[in-house]
Structures are given as structure tokens and as C-alpha cells.
């Protein structure tokens, strides 16, 4: 599709949109779908037709609006009225009220607090465009970054913007994206690959899923721009098989983009070509690690290999490979559209832009948020998250999944960025935030993560293969009331060992949950070891007390 055809399509879409007096947006991302939002959309379709409003009122399935725990969510435009949860019985009343006052009984309480502190770059289209219609994405400014880049920028101009933006990888380690692109671009090989890491193995995280389900074209556009920048002609999206809806929408998005000449040969009427294939993960956390992901795409067991050589030089089938996370790619189109300097205005000195967090656990408003770096944990948990339910007390927030740590209340006012979280012994990770209150036992939480690492260890290197089960057993002993002071010392030694001798990130970071709980919640370990009690009442202690409500 040539740039002027793109503009024609935008005009046509806008003309269609101008006929609508009202638009009813219904969330069709996985969260709301699991609360039957598909039936709700059908009910709206029927009701609008029955009332003879089909000419003036559009019913649109859109992506995630963020307030997942109030789902199924409905938004009415104009007016920006958020309703949730909505039942099929409410449909006729909503349609009746379109020209009148909003129905106060159905207004979503969470949506106001939820949106006030947010800043949307990655999620700018989420909940607004229909993820299954490429026209809708294009009309919202989609693919203009790609067509502009191809028409007016050289690959090194593109990279210069990414470098200037200060964007860092959103998959966990926070490696500067511009630097990675530069490395791949510099390698002389004629065959290169671009890979999108959509494995999202961290339990408690669903940012990537939401982006893929709500705005799949944005990720494809980001990948195509990256391919142009590093001169790759082929790409893979490695998506976890547990995300069937995301896979379905991505597959459709790829077909539609090919049909519109935005992927495939002669993209936007230029000589640039880029094709993308989906590869399914199969439920192995370690496959999120880049060398293991490569091995999995090649059809092998997903075992990591030592780096260097890094995939940027030696990746898929031995060729230079650029691997970025879903959210990293999703940041690219706006960076190219608005320039690297624009992006660098948001965030902190060393962490630019925004971060999407999945907030879950013992907190009132669970869901998906996008906030600028530098916001405090307190603002996230108490302002946006609405605090702790049932009048209980905040205990900790767990960030970074099994590679991260638990951050206690004393650091709630710390700004959130890569360095600050690392300085208190956790990591930003991919952006899962699990809030815990006084009903969570920190020994139990450490044991939970160690069980995870133990069962996800690929077994290739000894420290991780045998160390994680050892640590798990020790934690099990402590939680059952059979622990001694010596066990804590042993745990500390094992943490040290794994951190220094494992082959890949899984083993290197597996001790983090233990180290951080030992650091901030030593009293809970002591209560288990010395008093044989579990202060939170979670662990089955020697006394036979077994309470988990």
C-alpha cells in the first residue's frame, strides 16, 4: 500500500465514523471475554438493530480498557462513559439512555482513579481500536510510522531516533534498545532475523498478552520498522500457547497486513520486504530466555547456551538476530511518529518513557496500567490500585516475578525505575506487580517461587538443577516448623552459589525472592524457626495448625 492509499483509507474510515452519533465499545480482551463479554456484544448488536439505530450507533469490540476486575466493561462515546460490570439485562437500558443521562448504577467506580495517574503510549489504542480490523488501526494513525520511515528515513536515521529515545528493553533486563539495534545493524551478514519475544512466562504478568490482544498491528509495525533498521527480511513471533486469543488475532493481523502491502514484498510500494511467522511456545518458562527461545524456534528443547556469542551476532540458525519484547516493539511506532526526543521527555533520567504494569493480588483495583517511570509504588498501589481490600494492611509488593523480590512498606515512596528497584534487591522485570497483605506469609511466598524455579529449571547446569530443589526443601522444612538457624545459613550459601555459578538468568535470579524476603522479613523466618508459628496463619506448622482461608 502506497502512502497516499493509506491516506485515502483513513479518509474513508473517518467518513464512516462521522456517520455514527454514538459508539458503544465493548471489551473483547481475554479478561472480559471470560466474563462473557461476547454475549454482551451480541446483545448490543441485537438491541441496536431492534431499536432501528443501526445507522447512527456503532457497536464495536475493542481491546482491554485496563479495569479488568470491573469487567465486562463497556464505554460509550461521545462522553467517555465507562460502565462495568455490565450484564446482558442492562443492555436495553443503556441503549435507551444514549441521548440522556448516564446510568449511575452501572458507572465503573474504578475507571476515574484508574485513569487519572496514567500516561498512555503503548496502550494508546487499547480499548479504542478494534483489534480485528486493520482499517481501524490505520485510521488511528497506524502504519504511518512505517510508511514515513520507509519513505523519508535511512535505516541509521531510524536507529538514531531509537537511541535518542532512551528506550530500554521491557522484557526484564532493561538493555538499551538502540544499542542492540546498532549491534545487529552493524553485523555484515546478509541473512538476519527479527524475533518478538511474546512468551511472557512470568506468572502474574499479562501486559504482553493485553497488547497482543488489544492492538496486534502495533507490534507488527514495530517489528517491521526494526527489520528495516537492521536490514532483516524475516521475523518470528514466539507466542505462548496459553494465549489462544492473542494468537488468533495476531494471525489475522498478519494476513490483513500482508493483504494491504504492509508486510511481505514491496512494503508501502518500496523495495523493502519483510515476512513474519508465528511460532508457538509450549509452556516452558526458560524459553523466555533468548538463547533458549532461539533453540525452541529451531524445533529443539529450549535449553539456554552460554553467551557470548549474543544472538545479535549469532542467533537463529547461526545468523544475527534481534530479539525484543512485545512492549519494546509496541513503543517503536510512536517513537518514529513523534521522534526520539519526544519520547525521552517522559520518565526519569535513566528510565525513559512509560511502563505497563499488570497489577494483581490483594489490591482493590486489579488490571492493567501504564504509568510514566518515576511514579512511586505508593501511587500505584494506593491511588491507582485503590489500596488493600477488607481493611487489611499492606505487607509487600512483589515485582519481577520469580526473578524479582518483595518490596516492603518502607520503600513505598521510592520512584519506580530500573535502578531504584534493583537498589532494594528486586527488579522491574517485565512488569507484573503482585500486592500482598498480612494474609500472605513471606516464607510461603519464597517457597512458592522456589517451587516455580525448581520445576522450570531446564536441568542443563548443576547449580540450578540441584540447588533449586535443595532450597525448596529447606524452605518447606522451615514452613513445616522443622527449620533450624543453620537452615537460614544454608539458604544464604545456596543463594550465593546459584547467583554466581548458574548458566542462565533463571538460575542466576532464582535466589532473589529468598534473598529479599530474608532481608526484609527475617522476623517471619524466625517466627517459623524459633516459635514454630506462622504469623500470617498460612503455613502448616508443627502444632498442627493449618489455616488458609
Amino acid at each position, binding site marked *: 500500500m502506497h502512502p497516499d492509499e493509506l491516506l485515502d483509507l483513513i479518509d474513508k474510515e473517518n467518513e464512516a465514523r462521522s456517520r455514527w452519533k454514538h459508539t458503544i465499545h465493548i471489551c473483547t480482551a481475554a*479478561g472480559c471475554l471470560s466474563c462473557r463479554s461476547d454475549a454482551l456484544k451480541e446483545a448490543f448488536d441485537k438491541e441496536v438493530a431492534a431499536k432501528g439505530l443501526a445507522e447512527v450507533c456503532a457497536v464495536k469490540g475493542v481491546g482491554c480498557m485496563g479495569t479488568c476486575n470491573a469487567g465486562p466493561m463497556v464505554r460509550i462515546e461521545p462522553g467517555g462513559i465507562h460502565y462495568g460490570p455490565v450484564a446482558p439485562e442492562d443492555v436495553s437500558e443503556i441503549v435507551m439512555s444514549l441521548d440522556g443521562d448516564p446510568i449511575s448504577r452501572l458507572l465503573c467506580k474504578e475507571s476515574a482513579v484508574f485513569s487519572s495517574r496514567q500516561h498512555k503510549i503503548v496502550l494508546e489504542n487499547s480499548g479504542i481500536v478494534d483489534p480485528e480490523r486493520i482499517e481501524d488501526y490505520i485510521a488511528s494513525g497506524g502504519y504511518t510510522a512505517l510508511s514515513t520511515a520507509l519513505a523519508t528515513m535511512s535505516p541509521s536515521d531510524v536507529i538514531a531516533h531509537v537511541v535518542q529515545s532512551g528506550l530500554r528493553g521491557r522484557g526484564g533486563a532493561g538493555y538499551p534498545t538502540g544499542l542492540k539495534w546498532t549491534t545487529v545493524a552493524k553485523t555484515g551478514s546478509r541473512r538476519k532475523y527479527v524475533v518478538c519475544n511474546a512468551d511472557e512466562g512470568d506468572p502474574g504478568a499479562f501486559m504482553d498478552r493485553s497488547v497482543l490482544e488489544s492492538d496486534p498491528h502495533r507490534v507488527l509495525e514495530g517489528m517491521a520498522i526494526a527489520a528495516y533498521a537492521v536490514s532483516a527480511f524475516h521475523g518470528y513471533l514466539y507466542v505462548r*500457547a*496459553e494465549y489462544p486469543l492473542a494468537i488468533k488475532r495476531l494471525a489475522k493481523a498478519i494476513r490483513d497486513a500482508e493483504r494491504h502491502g504492509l508486510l511481505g514484498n514491496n512494503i508501502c510500494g518500496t523495495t523493502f520486504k519483510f515476512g513474519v511467522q508465528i511460532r508457538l511456545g*509450549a509452556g*516452558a518458562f526458560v524459553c523466555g530466555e533468548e538463547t533458549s527461545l532461539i533453540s525452541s524456534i529451531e524445533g529443539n528443547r529450549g535449553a539456554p547456551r552460554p553467551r557470548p556469542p549474543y544472538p545479535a551476532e549469532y542467533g537463529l540458525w547461526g545468523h544475527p538476530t534481534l530479539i525484543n519484547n512485545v512492549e519494546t516493539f509496541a513503543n517503536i511506532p510512536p517513537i518514529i511518529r513523534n521522534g526520539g526526543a519526544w519520547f525521552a521527555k517522559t520518565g526519569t533520567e535513566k528510565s525513559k518513557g512509560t511502563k505497563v504494569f499488570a497489577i*494483581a*493480588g*490483594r489490591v482493590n483495583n486489579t488490571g492493567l496500567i501504564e504509568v510514566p517511570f518515576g511514579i512511586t509504588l505508593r501511587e500505584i498501589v494506593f491511588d491507582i490500585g485503590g489500596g488493600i481490600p477488607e481493611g487489611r494492611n499492606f505487607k509487600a509488593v512483589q515485582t519481577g516475578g520469580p526473578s524479582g523480590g518483595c518490596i516492603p512498606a518502607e520503600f513505598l515512596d521510592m520512584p519506580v525505575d530500573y535502578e531504584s528497584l534493583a537498589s532494594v534487591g528486586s527488579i522491574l522485570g517485565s512488569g507484573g506487580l503482585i500486592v500482598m497483605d498480612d494474609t500472605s506469609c513471606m516464607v510461603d511466598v519464597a517457597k512458592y517461587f522456589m517451587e516455580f524455579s525448581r520445576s522450570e529449571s531446564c536441568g542443563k547446569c548443576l547449580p540450578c538443577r540441584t540447588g533449586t530443589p535443595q532450597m525448596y526443601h529447606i524452605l518447606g522444612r522451615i514452613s513445616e516448623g522443622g527449620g533450624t538457624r543453620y537452615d537460614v545459613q544454608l539458604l544464604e550459601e545456596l543463594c550465593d552459589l546459584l547467583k554466581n555459578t548458574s548458566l542462565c538468568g533463571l538460575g542466576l535470579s532464582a535466589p532473589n525472592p529468598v534473598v529479599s524476603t530474608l532481608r526484609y522479613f527475617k522476623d517471619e523466618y524466625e517466627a517459623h524457626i524459633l516459635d514454630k508459628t506462622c504469623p500470617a496463619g498460612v503455613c502448616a506448622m508443627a502444632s498442627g495448625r493449618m489455616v488458609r482461608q
Partner: protein
Amino acid sequence: MASETGTSSGQPVDRRLKMVEATMRRYGNEPSALIETLHTVQEAFGYIDEEIMKYVAAVLNVPLSKVYGVATFYHFFNLKPQGKHTCVVCTGTACYIKGAQNLIETIGHETGVKPGETTADRSLSLLTARCLGSCGLAPAVVFDGDVAGRLTPPDVLQRIRGWKEHAS
């Protein structure tokens, strides 16, 4: 070939084999198609048995040991037939914090199965997952492919007992 009993799709074997062949062909029968092929095998037959592993090994020209190694490495693949209904309880962090363990215990009490097991009459398999990505609705369970969130033990019992009534 995979036996016809115990598989959930109810389609004749050759239709299912055709699906598997189509996947292999789509990837040019390359060894790198192995994981995609195993996904199709599982989708078509419900699980991956030794006969079909041998067949896939032959077509893709990879050693049987490698097919077996890959099939066992990834948690998503089942090597045993599954029950008529499946119940996948999420044991990710968010669901764990919100009591996923209680759901597993409840199902265990009701049916006598532990995670990873199938009831003796093959009516139900209980599985666990590492996070379904519906953490905002924790605790979450997939009943026969449908995700349901914010579940309590009584909700889960109701679903399972509902299946039983339909069966009889």
C-alpha cells in the same frame, strides 16, 4: 496409531492424521517444524503417544529420541489420554495469593484426583497452568477451554457437578 478411545475430538483417525500432515507440509517437513507439529498432534488427538511420535520422527527426519525429548521438555504436551472434561487451575502468583490451592483441594476432595491426574472413569482431568494471563480475575480456571475468573470453591464444585449431571 493413537487409539481412538480416550481422545476428545471424536474425529476419525485419518482426518486427524491429515491435520498433522498438513502442518508438517506447511513447514516444508523441516525438522524445525517439530514443535508446531506436536501442537497439531495434541490438538487433533488430545495427547501424543509413541506411535505418532514415531510417525512424526520419520516424516521430519529427526531421531525418535529427539521427538520424545521435546515432547517431554515442554509442559504443554500431554503424553497420556485426557479425560472427557478438563479443568486447568492457574497456579500463577496472583492466583496463588488469592487461594488457587483451595480450588485444587476442593476438586481433589470431590473427584479424588491430584493435579496432572485423570479420574479412573476418564471423565475429568485436573491440570495446572503457570499463569493464564487473567491475573486481574484471580483465581482463574479453564473449564474445557473456557476461562472463568474470581472463583470460589463452591463455584468450581458447581461446574464439575454440572458436568457429571450432563454425563448421566
